[in-house]
């Protein structure tokens, strides 16, 4: 693609944004006195701020670039990542799980595991999580720098150093509060920066009706029914009828249940935002508040991809095409930015893009420094020091967390395969996690041994399933079948991923139950008070008017989501 030329106005917008981001960190530095201030914002964040940060921390590179790419590649079915694969889990974590996370006063998700199960379960979760966040933030940085190199001609080093330094400064100064405040700023910037792009694109293709008409040839040329790119559910009857190669059961169980609940209900990156909320009610409302904009995000991140592929097919070659004839879907958003936006709004759009990368990175760094300091350093390396000591360690962890991320970004440029492999291993570790939490929170008989070995068995089951299956047309190796022969071939990589998750979850669930029944309980009912559903007094919310109760909000959110699914069926 042609490189975009930025004008003075575009640079002015970018610089103003950087100024505000750093300024917020500078103002907030005064309020960081204890380690709880730094790692958990002193548990003082109002629900609407925590909610938008909950959303924004997840709104990294993968979301903006990746969801648009999926929109182009798979069409409207991508909306399942929101309306099936996010909202129900966000409602569940808000209403059913937050009472235990927030009520237990655990300072992190691994710490909850120690309170509920034992030290080894916490150690396993803390260490894998810490490694994973550093690599995720490195990969995010790598993606940003590559994109800016391609689109603007900026050097890779400049982008890496610039984004790393800015994120470092504002977290170092203001801790989690600064990350959360900036995430909210970034949220508004992303919405207001991408909205003109979507509106112009929609006007150009002739609204939703025009887009549907233009997507029909995209679908028929690929050998599917005309509506395959503009319907979300209609073509899920069999895996061969839709471009994702997934059937409804794999979609609902794999994505909607295992992967989605596994991420939104157990990932400390997002849970940390709710733990920082000012009260139990605010913590429970955090994911619910986040669900409302989340529900509408497909319009912002998937629609541009669908518009890009419609125009690409209709007008001939909008997206750059690779040597094998497939368009480069990852460039859908940058290409549209360059296509529609003049100098001025272009600067705003690019600033929004950078904001999304930085919020993803900052989310990882703040989760890393907390888990490192509380769950690894304070637990295994230097227990029993003063709070000042751990606060200093938090500052240091922010610095070396970012240094490791930069190293990971450079490692990705050199050894792409190692990164792919690491991501695969993380996927194996994460897939069974929700079974452990579900049993931990709702079954008091679940034991420490059961949880730990259940997790291990789930992880091994995920690796084994992946090692024995292969997506259609892939070579044995990282894509699967590394255990020798492929026992089963899936129609697509996505189908294989969904089923790996289902297998991992089921194995962990069964293994945890069996091992728990075979081993003695390591926690008495008294120790589990506030950690397990049946041993915790119900929250009644009677003091709140009905319309302010989390359950009411949850029902409204689920109802609206169901409505969206039906409208775009």
């Amino acid at each position, binding site marked *: 693609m042609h490189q975009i030329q930025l004008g003075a*106005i575009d640079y*002015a*917008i970018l610089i*103003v*944004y950087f100024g*505000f981001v750093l*300024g*917020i960190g500078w*103002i*907030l530095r005064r*309020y960081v006195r204890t380690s709880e201030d730094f790692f958990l*914002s*002193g548990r*003082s*964040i*109002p629900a609407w*701020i925590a909610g938008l940060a909950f959303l924004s921390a997840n709104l990294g590179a993968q979301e903006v670039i990746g969801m648009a790419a999926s929109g182009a590649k798979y069409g409207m079915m991508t909306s399942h990542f929101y309306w099936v694969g996010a909202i129900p889990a966000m409602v569940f974590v808000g209403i059913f799980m937050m009472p235990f996370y927030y009520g237990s006063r655990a300072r992190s998700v691994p710490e909850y595991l120690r309170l509920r199960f034992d030290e080894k379960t916490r150690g396993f979760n803390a260490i894998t999580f810490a490694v994973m966040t550093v690599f995720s933030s490195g990969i995010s940085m790598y993606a940003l720098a590559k994109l800016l190199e391609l689109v603007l001609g900026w050097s890779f080093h400049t982008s890496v150093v610039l984004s790393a330094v800015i994120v470092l400064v504002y977290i170092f100064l203001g801790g989690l*509060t600064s990350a959360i*405040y900036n995430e*909210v*700023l970034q949220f*508004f*910037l992303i919405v*207001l920066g991408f909205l*003109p792009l979507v509106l*112009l694109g929609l*006007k*150009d293709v002739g609204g939703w009706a025009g887009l549907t008409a233009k997507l029909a040839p995209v679908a028929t040329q690929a050998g599917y029914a005309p509506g395959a790119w503009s319907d979300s559910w209609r073509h899920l009857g069999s895996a061969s009828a839709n471009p994702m190669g997934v059937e409804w059961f794999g979609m609902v169980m794999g994505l909607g249940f295992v992967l989605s609940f596994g991420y939104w209900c157990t990932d400390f990156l997002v849970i940390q935002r709710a733990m920082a909320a000012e009260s139990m009610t605010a913590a429970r409302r955090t994911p619910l508040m986040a669900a409302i904009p989340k529900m509408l995000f497909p319009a912002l991140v998937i629609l541009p991809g669908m518009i890009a592929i419609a125009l690409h097919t209709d007008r001939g070659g909008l997206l750059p095409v690779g040597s094998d004839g497939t368009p480069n879907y990852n460039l859908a958003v940058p290409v549209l930015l360059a*296509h*529609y*936006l*003049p*100098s*001025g*709004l272009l600067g*705003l759009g690019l600033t929004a893009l950078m904001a999304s990368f930085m919020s993803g990175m900052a989310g990882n760094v703040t989760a890393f420094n907390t888990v490192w300091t509380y769950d690894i350093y304070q637990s295994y390396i230097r227990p029993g020091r003063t709070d000042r000591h751990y606060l200093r360690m938090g500052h240091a962890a922010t610095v070396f967390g970012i240094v490791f991320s930069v190293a990971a970004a450079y490692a990705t440029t050199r050894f792409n395969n190692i990164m792919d492999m690491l991501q695969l291993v993380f996927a194996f570790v994460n897939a069974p996690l929700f079974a452990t939490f579900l049993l931990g929170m709702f079954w008091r008989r679940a034991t420490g041994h059961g949880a730990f070995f259940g997790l291990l068995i789930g992880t091994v089951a995920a690796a084994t399933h992946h090692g024995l299956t292969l997506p259609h047309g892939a070579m044995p190796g990282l894509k699967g079948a590394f255990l020798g022969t492929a026992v089963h071939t899936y129609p697509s990589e996505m189908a294989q991923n969904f089923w790996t998750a289902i297998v991992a979850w089921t194995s962990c669930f069964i293994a945890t139950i069996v091992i728990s029944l075979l081993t003695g309980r390591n926690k008495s009912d008294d120790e589990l008070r506030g950690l397990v559903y049946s041993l915790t007094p119900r929250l009644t919310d009677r003091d709140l008017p009905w319309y302010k109760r989390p359950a009411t909000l949850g029902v409204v959110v689920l109802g609206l989501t169901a409505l969206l699914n039906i409208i775009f069926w």
Partner: protein
Amino acid sequence: MNLDLRLPIGLMFTVFGALLTVFGLASDKAIYARSLGINVNLWWGLVLLAFGAVMLGLALPGARARPGGGRS
């Protein structure tokens, strides 16, 4: 927390809105060929100004009510 977040959000979008509106009025109309002939800088600049003003409007009474800090 002693910083009302609506204040920096309002300020930032007011600055963005002002920049875009002024640029939209001053810029050569030829650059709007790609945005379907619409002066998007001017229009979106006004939208951002309005958004910024609303945020500032929400933040300022709170700041006045409690000297030295915001509502939240």
